[in-house]
């Protein structure tokens, strides 16, 4: 099966390339890159780890499949002793005191972190322009946005600066940049991978997600990071997904798609035509395709943002400059909090915090926040019924192609609405994979909760089908 990780593993084992050389080459590429993907390079630690891998190989020891593989980390994950800025002024000089579980698991199998990657500040954005490190430029056309919020991660993978990267997906932040840069990006089932050490945006939909250039690499990385973690009580135990279990898709008989996504006025005509052409190719393989009814896009987006803003207002209330962060002193504690937050949060982050506090306040919570929760339950119920009828739901990733750099910041509402096709699956906590096929910004493959295996299986099938 096509796999960049396996290919590099073989080169290391055959001594075609040393691990130090491999890591140094990638660091050089990252350093020279003009796409603004780097917040900080982890050169010292990366080269030390690479030297250890070379010693092992020289001693004739076998190395694990991920051992020596250079990877990137969205700058919202804790990695002990490294800068973890969330692309924000507030945490510009903050260093992680501990390491996130998902990242620790990758370190434990010998993968080598080489870069902390640019993203929208605290995950607040869909373009990776809301950052103090400069807008991330798209891998295919640098005049366009890299997508977000995990834009730096997707661009690094697309450009082969990292072999894989770990993004974070709350409402589409792995899947959309993966689509914009023509790579694979998985949002696993909520709770499959521990969130411990991932800076919280909206805790009820935050997911750790791998970005890579093949389904097989997504599988390898997913297996390592998955599992129950005592430090995140929403995690659950999951079985390892084997290579053979996703190699044929005979048990996928019926798929569905949301009619209203495709009939929407907002969809780009080419994306619509390409999506429908993909559906025809799938039908030609003998798979039954059903049109499904779903909530209107504006309801999905509004429900998602209402809940996400409420959660982020609460999660980010800890950032007041008292224990860490860029504190600005004022006449007393309360004034210090206010000036620190006013000066250090971006406009978009402030907009979301204020929105969250609005919906959580007396008089608003019933008609907005509680209603949002009720709508979320209805959305989940809808998915439950759908997956009694179909094995997989197929969807475009975005209604349109990536905007030019600068456009999204002018119109926040348009940016929120551009998440129309990704947020519903987040609210449902479902496993969804972006594949770089089918439309200009890819396709999303979604299965029922805890069925991440089926998603990868169908992705393999589509590789040869469309």
């Amino acid at each position: 099966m096509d796999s960049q990780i396996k290919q590099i593993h073989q080169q290391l084992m055959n001594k075609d390339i040393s691990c130090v050389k491999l890591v140094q080459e990638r660091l050089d590429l990252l350093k020279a890159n003009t796409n603004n993907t780097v917040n900080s390079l982890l050169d010292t630690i990366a080269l030390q780890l690479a030297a250890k891998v070379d010693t092992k190989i020289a001693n004739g020891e076998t190395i694990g499949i991920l051992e020596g593989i250079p990877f990137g980390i969205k700058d919202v994950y804790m990695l002990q002793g490294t800068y973890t800025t969330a692309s924000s002024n507030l945490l510009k000089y903050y260093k992680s005191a501990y390491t996130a579980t998902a990242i620790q698991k990758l370190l434990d199998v010998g993968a080598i972190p080489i870069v902390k990657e640019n993203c929208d500040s605290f995950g607040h954005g869909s373009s990776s322009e809301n950052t103090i490190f400069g807008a991330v430029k798209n891998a295919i056309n640098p005049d366009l946005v890299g997508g977000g919020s995990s834009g730096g991660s997707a661009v690094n993978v697309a450009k082969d600066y990292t072999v894989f990267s770990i993004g974070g997906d709350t409402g589409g932040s792995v899947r959309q940049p993966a689509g914009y840069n023509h790579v694979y990006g998985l949002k696993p089932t909520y709770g499959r991978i521990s969130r411990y050490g991932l800076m919280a945006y909206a805790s009820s939909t935050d997911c750790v997600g791998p970005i890579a250039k093949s389904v097989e690499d997504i599988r390898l990385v997913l297996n390592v990071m998955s599992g129950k973690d005592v430090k995140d009580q929403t995690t659950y135990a999951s079985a390892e997904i084997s290579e053979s279990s996703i190699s044929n898709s005979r048990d996928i008989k019926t798929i569905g798609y949301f009619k209203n996504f495709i009939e929407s006025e907002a969809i780009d005509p080419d994306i619509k035509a390409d999506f429908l052409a993909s559906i025809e190719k799938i039908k030609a393989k003998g798979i039954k395709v059903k049109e499904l009814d779903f909530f209107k896009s504006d309801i999905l987006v509004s429900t998602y943002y209402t809940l996400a803003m409420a959660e982020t207002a609460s999660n980010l209330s800890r950032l007041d400059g008292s224990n860490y962060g860029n504190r600005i002193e004022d006449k007393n504690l309360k004034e210090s909090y206010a000036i620190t937050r006013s000066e250090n949060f971006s406009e978009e982050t402030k907009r979301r915090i204020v929105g969250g506090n609005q919906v959580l306040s007396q008089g608003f919570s019933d008609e907005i926040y509680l209603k949002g929760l009720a709508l979320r339950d209805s959305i989940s119920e809808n998915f439950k019924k759908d997956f009694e009828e179909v094995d997989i739901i197929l969807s475009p990733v975005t209604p349109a192609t990536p905007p030019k750099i600068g456009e999204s910041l002018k119109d926040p509402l348009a940016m929120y609405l551009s998440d129309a096709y990704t947020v519903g699956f987040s609210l449902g906590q479902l496993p969804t994979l972006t594949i770089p096929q089918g439309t200009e910004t890819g396709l999303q493959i979604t299965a029922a909760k805890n069925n991440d295996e089926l998603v990868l299986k169908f992705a393999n099938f589509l590789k040869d089908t469309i």
Partner: protein
Amino acid sequence: MSKIMTVDVLSSIKGAQPSEAVNKLFDVIKNAQSTNNTSFNNNHNNGVSLDDLRDDVVFESSALEKQIIIKNFPKEKNGYLVVSKIIEE
């Protein structure tokens, strides 16, 4: 507590105002119909089951972790965190 707190105070952000773009999202929610209309008493099943709660364990931080936490203090004196004067109101 009859005091009305404005969003700038609630958010600890000076001069913060509700945004038009966000208010438009909220208007959609206000006017939306959820399929089960009695849903205010329904199951927001996103929490962890009581049977599944872990034991209350204390994790001792490593010396390095403690050292980094102190290094992150915005203002430090003799290894202690210095904060502004706490107001009483």
